C-alpha cells in the first residue's frame, strides 16, 4: 500500500512537471516564431534598401513602397530605414520620406531611436573597419532589442559600397504575455487540490463527497480537452503559415522586383535565418511561382509571388518533437488525470490528511524541492527526452532509439571516439585515481595519526592545500607545468639529461598528466576522511593487541582496516562518482589529446553537444553515463550497505 502511494505521488508529480515543461516549450516556440517573423521583415527591408543602392535602374520609389508595405503587415508595428544617419523612410504612408522634426513631440521617440541607430551605424562602421574579416556577409548581424511592452525591435545594418551606411529597423506588434494554457491547466489542478484539501477540514463527509465529485469532473473535462486539442502543433502550423503569408506579401510588395532572379535562392536563405544567424531551413524558395515549380496540390494566394516552404521539412516537423512531446504530454496528462480520478475521493483525501498532518515537514522540505524540481529534475527529464531526438537545423525531431543504437552498436574500438574505447579509458581513469587517492591519503593519515608527532597540525594543514585551490586553476597550472618548452617538469627532467617530452602527444603520457593532476587534487579528501576515522579508533584496542603479541602488520590488518571501512567505503563511492564525472581536469589539462583519446565519457558527451553540435546524440550519451553511475551506486549500496543507516 505504501509503495502504491509512492507511485501515485510520483505519477502526479511527473504529470505536473511535464505539464509545466510543455508550457515552457510552447512559450519558447511561440516566442521564436514571432521573433522570426520580425527578423524576416527587417532583413527584407535591409535587402531592398541595399538593392536600391546597388541596382543601376531601381524601380521607382521601391524602398519607399516596400517599407510602407512592411509597416502594414499584421505582425509589424512600425518599420523605418536610416540612410546616412538620417531617417528618410518609415512605414506611415502619409509621412514617408519626410525628415524628422526634433522639436515635435510626436517625433520624439522615433527621433531618439534614429539617433541611437545612427550611432550604431557609425560604431558598426568603425568596428568593421578595424576587423575586415568580419565582412563576410553583405549585411551585419541582426540585433534584437526588447522595446518594452512585448514589442520586439530588430535592427539590421546595411552595407553599401563596402561600408555600413544604413540601417533598417522593424518593430513587432505588442504581444500579451503568453504562458500557454497547459500551465494554466496545471495551476488549476494545483489550486483544485489545495481547495479540496482546505474544504476537507471543514466540511462534513457528504459535503466532501459532493465537492470532490464536482472538482474531479471539472478536472476530467479539462484533461480531456487538453488531449483533444493538439495545441502545440496547431500553434506551430499557424506560425509557419503566417510567416509564409508575410513573405508572399513582402515579395509582392517589391522584394521580387528588386531581386535579380539568380539571387533569389540566396535571398530566401538569407531571410529564413534565426536570430543566431543559423539557417532555419524553413524556407526553400521565394518567388518560386515565377521561377520554379511550386509544390503540387496546393492552392496559392493570388498575386505575383509566392513563398514556398519545404513541404518535406514541414512534414518532418510535424512528426518531430512537437507532435511527439505534445502526444506524450497529453498521454501522461491523461494518465495523471485518470489516477487522480481513481484516487481522488479516497487516496487524495488520505494524502491531504497526511499532508496536513505532516505540514511542518513538507514546509521545511519544500523550498529545496521546488528549486531542485525546476532547475534539476525538469532539465534532466527534458535532457533524457532529447536523447530520443535528433536536431535537424534548429529543430528536435523524434528519432526513437537511433542515438542509442548508434552509440552502443559501434564496436570499432580502435577509434578514440568509440563509446567502448572511451568507457575503457574512463574505468581506467577512475580506478587509477581512486586507488592512488586512497593509498596516498590513507598512508599520510596513518603518519599523521600520532599525538606525539611534532608539528602535526602544520603538516595536516599544508597537506590539504590542494583541496582548497579551485580545481580549474589547478588544472590550468598543471597544464602549464607539463608544457613542452616552458613547463617546469621538462626543465626538471632536463636536469637528469632527459630530452624534453611532448606530454600531450601520446596516449600514456597524456593520460599520466591527467592522473598526476587529479591525484594532487584528490588525495587530501581521502586523507581527511581517513584521519577522522583513525582518531575515533579507541587506543585500548591497540594496547590489548600489543599485550597479545600482535605484530604491527596484524594490528593494521585486523584493527585499523576493519574499523576504517565504515568511513572509507562511502568516501570511496562518492570519490569514484566524482572522478568518473571529473570534467574540469580532462577538459583543461589534456583536453582529450592526442586526438580525443584521453577523453572520458563526460567530456566526450560535452564535445558531442557543443563541439560536434549533435545534442540528441550527446543527450543519449549522457543518459548512458547516468545509467552506468546509477547501476554502480545501486550495486555498491547493496554490497556495502553504505546508505543503510541514513534512511532510518
Amino acid at each position, binding site marked *: 500500500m505504501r509503495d502504491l502511494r*509512492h507511485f501515485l505521488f*510520483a505519477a502526479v508529480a511527473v504529470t505536473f512537471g511535464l505539464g509545466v515543461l510543455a508550457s*515552457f516549450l510552447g512559450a*519558447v516556440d511561440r*516566442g521564436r516564431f514571432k521573433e522570426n517573423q520580425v527578423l524576416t521583415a527587417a532583413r527584407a527591408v535591409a535587402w531592398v534598401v541595399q538593392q536600391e543602392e546597388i541596382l543601376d535602374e531601381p524601380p521607382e520609389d521601391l524602398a519607399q513602397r516596400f517599407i510602407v508595405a512592411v509597416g502594414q503587415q499584421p505582425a509589424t508595428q512600425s518599420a523605418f530605414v536610416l540612410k546616412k544617419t538620417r531617417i528618410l523612410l518609415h512605414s506611415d504612408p502619409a509621412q514617408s520620406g519626410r525628415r524628422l522634426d526634433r522639436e515635435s513631440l510626436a517625433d520624439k521617440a522615433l527621433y531618439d531611436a534614429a539617433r541611437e541607430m545612427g550611432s550604431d551605424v557609425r560604431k558598426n562602421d568603425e568596428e568593421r573597419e578595424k576587423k575586415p574579416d568580419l565582412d563576410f556577409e553583405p549585411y551585419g548581424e541582426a540585433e534584437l532589442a526588447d522595446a518594452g511592452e512585448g514589442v520586439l525591435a530588430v535592427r539590421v545594418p546595411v552595407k553599401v559600397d563596402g561600408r555600413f551606411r544604413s540601417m533598417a529597423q522593424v518593430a513587432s506588434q505588442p504581444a500579451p504575455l503568453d504562458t500557454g494554457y497547459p500551465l494554466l491547466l496545471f495551476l488549476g489542478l494545483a489550486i483544485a487540490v489545495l481547495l479540496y484539501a482546505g474544504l476537507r477540514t471543514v466540511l462534513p463527509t457528504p459535503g466532501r463527497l459532493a465537492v470532490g465529485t464536482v472538482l474531479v469532473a471539472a478536472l476530467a473535462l479539462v484533461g480531456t480537452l487538453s488531449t483533444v486539442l493538439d495545441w502545440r502543433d496547431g500553434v506551430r502550423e499557424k506560425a509557419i503559415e503566417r510567416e509564409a503569408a508575410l513573405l508572399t506579401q513582402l515579395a509582392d510588395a517589391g522584394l521580387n522586383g528588386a531581386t535579380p532572379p539568380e539571387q533569389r535562392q540566396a535571398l530566401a536563405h538569407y531571410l529564413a535565418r534565426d536570430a543566431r544567424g543559423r539557417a532555419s531551413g524553413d524556407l526553400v524558395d521565394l518567388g518560386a511561382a515565377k521561377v520554379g515549380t511550386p509544390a503540387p496540390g496546393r492552392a496559392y494566394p493570388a498575386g505575383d509571388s509566392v513563398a514556398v516552404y519545404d513541404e518535406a521539412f514541414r512534414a518532418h516537423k510535424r512528426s518531430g518533437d512537437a507532435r511527439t512531446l505534445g502526444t506524450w504530454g497529453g498521454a501522461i496528462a491523461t494518465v495523471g488525470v485518470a489516477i487522480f480520478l481513481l484516487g481522488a475521493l479516497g487516496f487524495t483525501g488520505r494524502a491531504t490528511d497526511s499532508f496536513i498532518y*505532516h505540514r*511542518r515537514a513538507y*514546509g521545511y*522540505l519544500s523550498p*529545496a524541492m521546488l*528549486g531542485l524540481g*525546476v*532547475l*534539476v529534475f525538469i*532539465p534532466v527529464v*527534458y*535532457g*533524457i527526452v*532529447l536523447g530520443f531526438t535528433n536536431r535537424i537545423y534548429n529543430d528536435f525531431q523524434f528519432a526513437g532509439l537511433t542515438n542509442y543504437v548508434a552509440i552502443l552498436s559501434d564496436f570499432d574500438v580502435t577509434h578514440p571516439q568509440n563509446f567502448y574505447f572511451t568507457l575503457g579509458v574512463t574505468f581506467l581513469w577512475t580506478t587509477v585515481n581512486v586507488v592512488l587517492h586512497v593509498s596516498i591519503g590513507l598512508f*599520510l593519515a596513518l603518519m*599523521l595519526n600520532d599525538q606525539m*608527532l611534532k608539528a602535526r597540525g602544520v*603538516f595536516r*594543514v599544508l*597537506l*590539504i*592545500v*590542494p*583541496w*582548497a585551490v*579551485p580545481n*580549474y586553476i589547478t588544472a*590550468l*597550472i598543471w597544464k*602549464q607545468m607539463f608544457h613542452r*618548452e*616552458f613547463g*617546469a617538469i621538462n626543465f*626538471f627532467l632536463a636536469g637528469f639529461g632527459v630530452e624534453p617530452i611532448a606530454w600531450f602527444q601520446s596516449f600514456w603520457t597524456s593520460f599520466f598528466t591527467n592522473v598526476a593532476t587529479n591525484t594532487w587534487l584528490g588525495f587530501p579528501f581521502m586523507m581527511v*576522511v581517513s584521519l*577522522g576515522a583513525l*582518531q575515533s579508533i579507541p587506543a585500548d584496542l*591497540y*594496547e590489548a593487541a600489543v599485550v597479545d603479541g600482535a605484530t604491527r602488520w596484524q594490528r593494521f590488518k585486523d584493527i585499523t582496516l576493519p574499523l576504517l571501512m*565504515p*568511513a572509507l567505503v562511502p568516501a570511496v563511492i*562518492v570519490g569514484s*562518482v566524482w572522478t568518473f*564525472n571529473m570534467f574540469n581536469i580532462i577538459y583543461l589539462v589534456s583536453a582529450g589529446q592526442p586526438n580525443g583519446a584521453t577523453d572520458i565519457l563526460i567530456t566526450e*558527451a*560535452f564535445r558531442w*553537444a557543443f563541439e560536434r553540435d549533435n545534442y540528441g546524440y550527446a543527450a543519449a550519451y*549522457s543518459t548512458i*553515463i*547516468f545509467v552506468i*553511475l*546509477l547501476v554502480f*551506486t545501486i550495486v555498491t549500496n547493496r554490497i556495502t550497505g553504505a546508505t543503510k543507516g*541514513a*534512511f532510518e
Partner: protein
Amino acid sequence: MTGHESSPFSPGRLGKMVFLTFATFVTLYPVFWVFKMAFTPSQGFDASPYPFPTNPSLDNFKHVLFELPFFTWLFNSVVVSAATTVLGVFLACTSAYALSRFRFPGRAPAMLSFLVTQMFPGVLMMIPLFLIMDSLGLLNQLLGLVLVYSTTAIPFCVWMLKGYFDTIPKELEEAALMDGATTSMIFWRIMLPLSLPAVAVTALFSFMTAWNEFILAAVFMNEESKHTLPVGLKQMVGPFATEWGNFAAAAILVSLPVVALFFALQKNLVGGLTSGGVKG
C-alpha cells in the same frame, strides 16, 4: 600509533618527520611555482624548476588589477558566491532538518532523489537548463547563476547536514518542547547553533561551488559585464607562455579568499565530513 613510544624524538618519529616534510614539499611545489611565475615579470621569464623568483616584481599583479576588468569579475563572483552561500545553506538546513527529525510519506524518495542528483552528468542538463533560464528571463542575470548554483550544491550539503543533525540527541528538543518551544524555535535556537561546524562546512561547499564554477557561467553569461572570475581567468589562458605570469597572479588573487576560508574552517572538515555526508 600505539601511543607508548616514549619521546617525540624517537628514530621512528624523526623518520616520519623527514618523510612528511618531503611529502609536503612535493605537494606544495606547484604552489611555489605559481608564486614564482606571478612575481616574475614576463620579460624575464624563467622556467627553471628552482621554485623562487629571481627578480621579484609586481608587474603581473598591476596588469591583472588595472588593465583587465578584474574588479568587474570580482564583483560578480562575490555577489554570486555570497548569495549562493546564503541561499544554499538555508535550503540545505531546512530540508536536512525535515529529513532528520520528521517521519513522513515521501521521505525516503526525497532522500533518494538527493542522492541520485549527484549522478546526473552536467552536460545532460545544460541545454534544457539554458532553455528554462531563457524562458524565465534569467540569462545574463547573476540571480540565474545563484539559483542554479545553490540547487546544485543542495544534495551533497543535505546529506552531510542530515548526518550531523542525526547525531544531536532528541532529548534536547523534547526538553525544549516541554518548555513550550515551537518547531521553528527549535530549529533556529537549538539545531542550528548546535550544528555550527556542519553548517560552516555546508557554507564552505556552497561558496566553493559558486566561486569555482566556470562552464555554466560561461554558457549562461554572454555579456562581458556579467563574467565571473573563473570565466575571466579562463580567457586569460592563451597558447603562449608569456601570458602565464598574468594568469598566475590572477590565480593567486582568486584562490586566496577560498583558501583562507578553507583554512579558517578546516578544523570542522574532519568532524563535518566523517559524521555526516560521507558516513552516508
